[in-house]
């Protein structure tokens, strides 16, 4: 029986000392040439060999400074990581930081120890982000493109296997890409490696979380798992590296300080004997169902990649955070359908919200082992964290570190506050709009109800009752505008949940936007802010999980009655544009005043 296990760094205490043969290529060359000369065997080293060697040395020199050795605060174990930005953000494995608490110590190859704080975790994808502190000029790795990796490419794995380096000089191993787009079944609870890179480069305990570089020294993966079987928990020639493209999809989510979730389509698929992949079951509450996907439909492509096996489907699904919109192509009776689908969450929040400060369970140990007595284990020795850093860590349910989320909320809300002081205005909003045919569209927003009048129709939303998708077909325009009003007035007191999500391409293919999330009862809203200029470019409000959201896009702002407000609302629901409305006036009226409509 083969166990696929991720490396567990805490196992160092149990590891026997390993003899490690280190071969210094230069000394070998000098000995071989000297022996050769005494025997008059002329050995000429081709220039290509020397160049290849020189280029390896240069690559290693260049990238080694970005490799991080991570230690538990009490020094009881460790792993590896890699710096990806000058301000100190480090990518590593979730299972490396699991149980370490909010702060840890890290070493770089300058020989110095740095304090680091936990930022965000992705338990499903086995990725975590921490932040090194104390500098704003950290060396960092260049990000590569893991989709261009091919079998046979040479790679460097760097890190801290067996905690060999006291001076934090990372250990380098060199090997070949053995496979790409590999799928590795969940080990233990929900940890799953999708679309990963398989290498014969030596990956050992302690390499976890460390970088895999390509031949040019670009970061292409995060090493985290090896196949082990009867030969023991060390390298047996099959290591797995999380693709850097997956990590980059999740990076802003991880920087949000949250416990990040993966996605589902709400459907299970199966492969048929003729090699096609068909939908086995689908939830009728899923967005894919609303976009027309049904049991028995054949998947053609997903997120722009062909789907020819169940593994490929899982590989594609595994690299996207929940909430992202990706294109899906399927066929039924010879007819092809191409639709965008917003991915739903894979887990319920309660499933994920394992306390990251708790040590990991060891689900992959098949045998029950007696606990190893560690002296003074229960004598809690708090790690020394400099006073100045204590404020950088804030515990909160559902978050790895709420501090980072609050920072991003504040940054994005600053863009909203630039719209003006809506609190100072009377609470009845009179919004006059006009559609593209020039027909008027009036909306009156009072504290307890919203009314809309357009053409010969009339829609009312009582705010004290359950929200509806009024006006019909809009997905809930009135509910959405009420959310906007509350965001402008008093978001922190009004919304039940209010947090920064991360980033995604707007509507699947647009510019990269930061996402804020708010909820009130069943109602949820995702707010989009351009990463380029922080501007709020739109928001989606869903009256519950089973309805298509009302999606409002905001091309530009304009001044109305002393405040900034969208000059146009582009309203979509499902896959259709519902209306494009130009704002002609926004007035604030005292609801108690006479003559109010």
């Amino acid at each position, binding site marked *: *029986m*083969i166990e*696929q296990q991720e490396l567990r760094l805490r196992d160092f205490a149990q590891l026997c000392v390993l003899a490690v043969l280190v071969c210094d290529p230069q000394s*070998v060359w000098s*000995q*071989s040439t000297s*022996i*050769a000369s005494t*025997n008059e*065997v002329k*050995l000429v*080293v*081709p220039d*290509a*060999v020397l160049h*290849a060697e020189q280029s390896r040395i240069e690559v290693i020199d260049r990238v080694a400074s970005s490799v991080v050795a991570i230690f538990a605060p009490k020094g009881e174990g460790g792993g590896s990581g890699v710096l990806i930005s000058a301000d100190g953000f480090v990518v590593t494995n979730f299972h490396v930081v699991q149980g370490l608490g909010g702060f840890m110590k890290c070493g770089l190859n300058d020989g110095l120890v740095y304090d680091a704080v936990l930022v965000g975790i992705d338990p499903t994808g086995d990725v975590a982000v921490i932040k090194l502190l104390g500098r704003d000029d950290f060396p960092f790795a260049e990000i590569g493109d893991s989709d261009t990796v*091919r*079998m*046979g*490419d*040479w790679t460097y794995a760097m890190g801290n296997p067996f905690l060999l380096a006291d001076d934090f000089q990372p250990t380098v191993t060199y*090997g*070949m890409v*053995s*496979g790409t*787009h*590999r799928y*590795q079944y969940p080990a233990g609870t929900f940890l799953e490696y999708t679309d990963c890179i*398989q290498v*014969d480069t030596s990956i050992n305990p302690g390499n976890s979380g460390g970088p895999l570089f390509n031949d040019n020294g670009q970061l292409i993966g995060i090493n985290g798992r090896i*196949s082990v*079987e*009867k*030969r023991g928990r060390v*390298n*047996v*020639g*099959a290591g797995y590296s999380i693709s850097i493209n997956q990590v980059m999809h999740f990076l802003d989510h991880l920087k949000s300080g949250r416990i990040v979730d993966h996605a589902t389509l709400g459907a299970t698929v199966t*492969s048929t*004997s003729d*090699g096609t992949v068909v939908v086995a079951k689908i939830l009728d509450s899923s967005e894919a169902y609303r976009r027309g996907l049904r049991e028995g439909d054949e998947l053609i492509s997903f997120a722009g990649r062909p789907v*020819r*096996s169940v*593994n490929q489907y899982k590989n594609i699904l595994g690299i996207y955070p929940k909430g992202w919109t990706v294109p899906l192509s399927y066929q039924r009776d010879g007819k092809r359908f191409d639709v965008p689908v917003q991915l739903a969450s894979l887990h319920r929040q309660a499933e994920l919200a394992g306390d990251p400060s708790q040590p990991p369970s060891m689900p992959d140990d098949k045998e029950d082992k007696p606990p190893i007595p560690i002296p003074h284990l229960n004598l809690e020795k708090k790690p020394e964290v400099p006073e100045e850093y204590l404020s950088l860590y804030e515990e909160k349910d559902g978050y790895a570190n709420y501090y980072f989320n609050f920072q991003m909320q504040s940054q994005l809300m600053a863009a909203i506050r630039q719209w003006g002081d809506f609190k100072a205005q009377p609470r009845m909003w009179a919004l006059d709009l006009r559609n593209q045919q020039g027909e008027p569209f009036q909306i009156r927003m009072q504290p307890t109800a919203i009314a809309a009048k357009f053409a010969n129709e009339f829609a009312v939303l009582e705010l004290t009752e359950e929200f509806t998708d009024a006006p019909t077909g809009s997905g809930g325009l009135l509910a959405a505008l009420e959310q906007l009003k509350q965001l402008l007035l008093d978001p922190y007191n009004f919304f039940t949940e209010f947090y920064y999500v991360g980033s995604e391409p707007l509507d699947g293919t647009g510019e990269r936007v930061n996402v804020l999330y708010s909820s009130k009862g069943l109602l949820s809203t995702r707010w989009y802010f351009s990463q380029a200029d922080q501007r709020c470019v739109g928001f989606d409000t869903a009256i519950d999980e089973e309805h298509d959201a009302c999606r409002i896009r905001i091309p530009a702002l304009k001044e109305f009655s002393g405040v900034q407000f969208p000059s146009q609302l582009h309203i979509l629901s499902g896959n259709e544009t519902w209306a494009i409305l130009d704002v002609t006036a926004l007035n604030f009226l005292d609801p108690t005043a006479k003559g109010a409509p």
Partner: protein
Amino acid sequence: MISRSLFILFSIASLLNCRFTQAESAADVIAAVQPKVVKIFGAGGLKNLANYGSGIIVSPDGHIVTVWNHLLDSDVVSVVLYDGRRFFGRVIGTDSRKDVAILKIDAKELPFFDINQTSQVGPGASILAFSNVFKVATGDEPVTVMQGVVSAKTELAARRGRYKVPYDGEVYLVDAVTNNPGAAGGALTTIDGRLLGMLGRELKGNNNTWLNYAIPMSELQQSIEDIVAGKISRKNDPLASSTKLKTKPYKSTDFGFFVVPDVVARTPAFVDSIIDDSKAEELGLQPDDLIVFANGELVHSVKTFNEVLGQLVGGDDLQLIVRRGDNLITITFIVPRD
């Protein structure tokens, strides 16, 4: 003398490595070999016996060379080609002396290795190994490729017993971890994709080390030709025809004795009683003997002893070292076939 040759070997190895470093076509070489290697799914799945393996296509009509092992004990095995096509494979012949079996699938115009055009290399040559290790690849996913260097070309001297192999001819030993579960039957090639040999079954050497090796095609060529020509079949291969995979694990009573009941966490593996007229009695095992080693593995408890029994395959040796008073006594059983 030895160290000098080693250094020269190392130099040669590095030279060969360099050829690969330069080759812009590493991915092309790999892509050219992949279609000639297949994934095989068959019997097994018990204990440490994998139910998956690898094979090499040696004819356009679907003759596939693989290792003669437990995988082939089911009536049909499933063969999956590089493009995801799935076929039923039928064993048309085995030559257990060479540890080789030939499967046939009903396919035409397959990419294949010509066994008349294989290569031979010496120590220091760079190699690639292609196989379905750890069942990482399924469907149309390419099998795993690894790289390394031939460490030696030498005669096989593997441990007997559980890891016994009838083959004792020449093998390539390599420095890559090529022989993991599922690798048996995979292809060892030169760095430019010429076939060198077939990756062998998992073999444990002395001192709990594992061998990484392949049987050279030159050793297999005659057997392959004879089997394909119908000169050797499974029926007239004495070793192959008698082996069946035992589905239930062996128990001590299969050898004619009882161990003490497993009552506490680490019950010492004492022999409780001997069955009359049994093999155990014939070999002189006695009640109250303490089993300390079984097939070279330290027996901590009744539980670990049962684990060793569970890994036995019919025809293996079961070597017990028991403590009787102050003496250590070695007793060797032959594991009965059903």
